[in-house]
């Protein structure tokens, strides 16, 4: 018909401005490729073992070899080209800061975000040590995690699907397996 359909432009701006400083407690992500976002602080492997024994072992087992709530967190390096791939922080994480980020945001399961940054550095270091990726006397901090080259660093490829080229056969097709 001859009727106008356009509504007058009405700007809807209901959001409130906020500063990054005000968002600081939420801003916990780490860009794991270069460690951007890693906080100040540090820990030792021994401190990490103490944190682990006190707050993690009950679910993950004494030496992170698996417990009542989760399987092993050690080993598996080199397993991806075998029959059974074993996924652990050691074998799977491409960058060490992945472990810092995940432990800080999600562990311990019962009290996420309860560890201090020093504790997270320490326990991250301990798990890496159990995986043979850091020596027992390592000092664990932002620089150390950035510097560490993880075994699965180059284990990923970008999505390149569609990767199948099925055809729509209707008659005298190959039977399904």
């Amino acid at each position, binding site marked *: 018909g001859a009727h106008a359909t356009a509504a007058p432009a009405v700007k809807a701006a209901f*959001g409130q401005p906020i500063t*990054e400083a005000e968002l600081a407690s939420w801003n916990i*992500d780490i860009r794991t490729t270069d460690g951007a976002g890693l906080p100040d602080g540090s820990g030792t492997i021994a401190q990490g073992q103490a944190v682990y024994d006190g707050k993690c072992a009950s679910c993950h087992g004494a030496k992170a070899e698996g417990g009542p709530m989760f399987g092993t967190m050690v080993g598996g390096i080199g397993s991806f080209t075998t029959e059974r*791939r074993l996924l652990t922080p050691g074998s799977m994480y491409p960058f060490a800061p992945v472990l810092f980020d995940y432990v800080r945001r999600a562990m311990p399961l019962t009290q996420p975000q309860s560890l201090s940054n020093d504790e997270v550095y320490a326990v991250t270091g301990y798990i890496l040590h159990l995986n043979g990726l850091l020596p027992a006397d390592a000092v664990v901090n932002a620089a150390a995690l950035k510097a560490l080259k993880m075994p699965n660093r180059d284990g990923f490829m970008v999505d390149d699907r569609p990767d199948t080229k099925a055809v729509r056969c209707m008659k005298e097709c190959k039977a*399904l397996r």
Partner: protein
Amino acid sequence: AAGLAGLAAAGQARAALPVPESNLRPGTPIPENEYGMPSKFEAHVKRRRTDVLVNKQNFSDWSFTPVHQQHGIVTPNGLIYERHHNGVPEIDPEQHRFAIHGMVRQPLVFTMSDLMRYPSVSRFYFMECSGNGLTDWLKPAAKTVQQTHGLLSCTQWTGVPLSVLLDEAGVDPKATWGLAEGADGSAHARSLPIKKLMDDALLVYATGGEMLRAENGYPLRLFIPGWEGNVSIKWLRRLKMGDQPWHLRSETARYTDPMPNGKWRQFSFAMEAKSVITSPSGSMKVQRGPVEIIGFAWSGLGKIRAVDVTVDGGRTWRKAELEEPVLDKCLTRFRLRWNWDGSPAKIASRAVDSTGYVQPTVEDIQKVRAITGFVQHHNGIFPWAINTAGEVSNAIA
């Protein structure tokens, strides 16, 4: 009542029909106010956890939609599948905040009432977990289609196009990715390319006509149409813009797909075209004579253009009927009438989408990907076997 049971069993109608008891007395009066529930006779229709892969705990866990008991394309809100990484949080909508920050001109924070003042849209979309089909590639594991394909639901999603709010915050022209993060006990987070965020991503507060259920993200979640469910971050608290992906655990050690030579496919977001027969399906029993073969087809990359069905294990295929409306990135119902003569049969469906993509067989997939461990994105053709007794079972081999 004995007479009626006999009538059904014997296929005869010689007993006079007694007046139903329900005609002879009043029913339940209408209560003052109420939220209805299913009939007690339907108590078996439930979401269920996996009965194959026994998880050690139920905090980082998932439950399946009973897709074989679903009618039409809309999954009831009480049955939408769920996956969460540290339980279902209870969030007061008055306290909830959503922030946009990072590479934007002006970081912004929103209350739920702020968000609900924006123009909303309501769109029908399916949602599927990248792990749907996890246990059934090379040999049968799950018994029912709820267990093989139930990480799949479909509903109408209501919310605000994310692009509206991103425009308001003013995205830095150099920003290319965003990180979405949840307010749950796992602070589940995923990196997403800005193209998709600006294209059809929604900030959703309602599904299937009402506010989100707690387990589906109440009061606010992201919804990324056609992509694996775990990127549609529930209990969404913030979106941070950046110029590269974050490579967190959830996008490196998890939600990546095993590939040949020990590699992993990363940022494999789209759910490619797929279909499954939901009836007859595993654990059902078929009677001789006309059988209505029905199922779902869907594609994260467009509309379903056609579905073919085989009843002879893949040697010949017939085009099934599609039921309207056939919508973009939405479950589509297909059906084919078949006359079962009592001999063993192997039935399966194959979807074709509007990009021309044809659903592959497991064999097709095996040629290009590794089938091991934490398999993802299983969109292979899925067969059911019917034996001479009419019993239907998982025929993955």
